[in-house]
């Protein structure tokens, strides 16, 4: 049972990547990519979790209370921002693909090859 959260991270990663590879629409691809990225949030936060620990916020708790790891949370915060920015850039590209290449299917965007 103690393995379950880690397995969840691997599952999300695999599922998201499957979506990216099979996608026929850039918007769908971007959403799948952010799903895959959410696997790292889950992994980081499960690593830092401590049984019966509180959040690392010591506003109203007695000193010395057991708390979960604050570092993984800081890392995850950065990761969330990264995910949003990449999604925004890719959506901008998707809009331009529709406008200038008349398609949002990534399989049809191959101008250069070989």
């Amino acid at each position, binding site marked *: 049972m103690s393995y379950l959260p880690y397995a969840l991270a691997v599952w999300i990663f695999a599922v998201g990547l499957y979506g990216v590879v099979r996608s026929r629409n850039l918007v769908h691809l971007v959403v799948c990519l952010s799903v895959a990225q959410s696997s790292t949030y889950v992994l980081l936060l499960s690593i830092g979790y401590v049984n019966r620990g509180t959040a690392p916020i010591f506003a109203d708790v007695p000193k010395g209370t057991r708390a979960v790891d604050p570092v993984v949370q800081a890392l995850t*915060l950065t990761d969330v921002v990264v995910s949003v920015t990449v999604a925004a850039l890719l959506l901008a590209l998707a809009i331009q693909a529709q406008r200038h290449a008349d398609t949002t299917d990534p399989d049809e965007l191959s101008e250069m090859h070989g």
Partner: protein
Amino acid sequence: MIPLQAAIIGLVAAGALAVVLTRDLVRLTMASSLYALLLVVLFLVFQAPDVALSELVVGAVGFPLVIVVAVVLERGK
């Protein structure tokens, strides 16, 4: 591991699959915002309120953003 954690883990796992398998853009936006909400709950259960709040605001903002783009693209067809 407590039952609450196991339950939300199961829901997130199912949510991820549902998002990836959804092809219709309008449903995709719904599925992905539902998935974001599930993640928010998971993060709260994992004692990460800062991250949960982040995911919440991003989900609330990302949702309309995706809709806007999806509408633009659909209209272009």
